């Protein structure tokens, strides 16, 4: 053997790429597909099971109540603001009327 260059060229020859078996790609594909399907089924079953369990109703119910309360609060706030605005514009009109009278 005559040096590093020679070893490197021998290495290139000795370690030639190896072709995978023809069915390996399809095996990996079907394995991935089954994992993906399994995960989707699991998720669906989990969601259905979760819906049937009354312990899991509390959170959506609380969310509904919370949402309802927030909505009602907003309506009241708007009403209150409108009443204040009406009252303010009424008193301004009254003051303006007073000024005109003098």
């Amino acid at each position: 053997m005559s040096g590093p260059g020679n070893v490197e060229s021998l290495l290139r020859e000795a370690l030639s790429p190896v072709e995978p078996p023809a069915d390996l790609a399809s095996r990996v594909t079907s394995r991935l597909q089954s994992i993906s399907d399994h995960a989707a089924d699991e998720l669906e079953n989990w969601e259905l099971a979760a819906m049937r369990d009354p312990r899991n109703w509390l959170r959506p119910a609380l969310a509904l109540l919370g949402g309802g309360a927030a909505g009602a609060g907003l309506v009241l706030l708007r009403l209150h603001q409108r009443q204040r605005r009406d009252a303010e514009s009424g008193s301004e009109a009254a003051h303006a009327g007073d000024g005109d009278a003098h």
Partner: protein
Amino acid sequence: MSEPAKTKAQLDEEFAALYRTHMRDLYSYAYYRIGNHHDAEDLVEQTFLQAYRHFERAQRESDGRPLRPWLLRIAHNLAANHYRYRSRRPQTSLEESGPVAALHSTEELVSGRDELARVLEGVKRLPDDRREALIMRFALGMDNREIARALGRTDGATKVLLHRAIKQLESLVALAEAGA
């Protein structure tokens, strides 16, 4: 502004393209690393299954760089675990647990060519990290930077690793020649 999240179908399609592109490289690495077709197939399959789980994140974090070193990093870690697992099972025969116990049909390919056979024999005797670096360079044609990313080393450390691997291989081959 961040890109919109990809749909699962898009990700699956991109992943399929990834494994079609790198299947041969992964298989070559696994084959030379483990030494038999059965375990090499298993290693490739496990590598892609693990890669699939983290593909979206890897794509995000790769910043457009090629994902081959990432795949090889997964295979490298799985191969290391494979030997650790086997070394904890004393009932396994030495032949099965030894690295690259039977180097396949390349041996058949190189039969009659003593020089190549001695080089392959030398590669088998190298420590794992040196052998892996040589496989990545010569079987997969990776450059120093890619090998560094796959092995989790710096570019400089990888250059030194390759240099030492070749030096050690030369000594092993020279010894074998002297003994022949």
